[in-house]
């Protein structure tokens, strides 16, 4: 009986330790603005925009590499410039993934996110985009010689975190 009671207490404490912070953060995030003791807290807005142009007027909704002839002798690089804009009001870290690897192993891909930032102001490994910042990036695929002929479709997902 005592043992059961102990387990129950521990469970409640653990649940409390997990649920309460999550719920608190959720509430904090979903409330647009509130005032405590005269201090105004602004809920951060997180929006990442993808565009074809530097002015960020043409949204990027898909990447069509079109049709190309199977290379015979050397790997051909195909790339697309994509402008990322942090349209929120706080810095965000950029993340991306792709399903190309599950579609084919013959076409390697890369997004020069790390490369770009490594060479600029932010330093190695940091993929932070400050509020309002626009960055030109390149998404590229490499078509090796004698890649299997066919149509390849995949999806890219990119998102930012606070």
């Amino acid at each position: 009986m005592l043992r059961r009671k102990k387990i129950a207490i521990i469970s409640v404490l653990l649940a409390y330790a997990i649920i309460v912070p999550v719920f608190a953060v959720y509430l904090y995030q979903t409330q647009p603005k509130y005032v405590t003791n005269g201090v105004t807290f602004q809920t951060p807005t997180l929006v990442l925009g993808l565009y074809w142009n530097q002015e960020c007027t043409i949204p990027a909704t898909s990447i069509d590499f079109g049709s190309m002839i199977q290379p015979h002798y050397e790997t051909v690089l195909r790339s697309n410039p994509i402008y990322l804009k942090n349209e929120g009001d706080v810095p965000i870290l950029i993340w991306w993934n792709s399903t190309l690897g599950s579609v084919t192993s013959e076409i390697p891909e890369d997004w020069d996110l790390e490369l770009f930032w490594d060479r600029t102001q932010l330093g190695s490994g940091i993929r932070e985009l400050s509020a309002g910042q626009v960055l030109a990036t390149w998404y590229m695929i490499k078509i090796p010689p004698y890649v299997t002929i066919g149509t390849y479709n995949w999806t890219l997902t990119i998102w930012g975190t606070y």
Partner: protein
Amino acid sequence: MLFKKTLILLVVVLLLYPLSVAFAFRYFYSTTPQVLPAGIVIRAAHDIAVSNLTSRTVFGQGFTYGLNVTCINQGSYTESFNVSLSANTTEIARLENITLPNDAFTTSTIVWNTTEFSRGFYNLTTCAEPVPDESNITNNNCTAIVRIGFAGDVSSATVGSPDGTVNMRDVQYLILRFNTNPSSPNWNINADINDDSTVNMRDVQIAILNFGKHE
């Protein structure tokens, strides 16, 4: 003892708090994922394909048939190439210098006179000779297994499957398709014994003239 346990529990709870907060921030504080569909079409530089050979599987010995062969240029350049048609290892015909722009196809008719061929099964193979630098040659051949038999032997106890004997089953098969042509719903090219694109009394007559013959 009790104090020690409580302390451990307290430490666990305290450790869980920042982890939960971090998780919650990570979960709630991310942008809506932007999903970009992407695609590319890889085409061959040079790629000739044979896409279709005749659908006739039964040939009457001693008759002449036109076999349609469809070739496609799936590559990116205009190509000139040769196409041959063979029954087993015997070359029946050869079409030379077929010229096709990219993404175009052509259907050629090759005439096959079966008089010189003995009755039996044949591998009928159409082969487009590879063009220079063509890497994908798996689609350059098209093969069909066909049978040469007594003209009129088109059916058996298994409807539509010849059995080496010309009998009432064959006549019945022809009559059931009487007056059909390629646009008819019940058209079967094997019933058109003389290859004039109609199943009529001429075909029935051929079957009757060979009536009773068996292999």
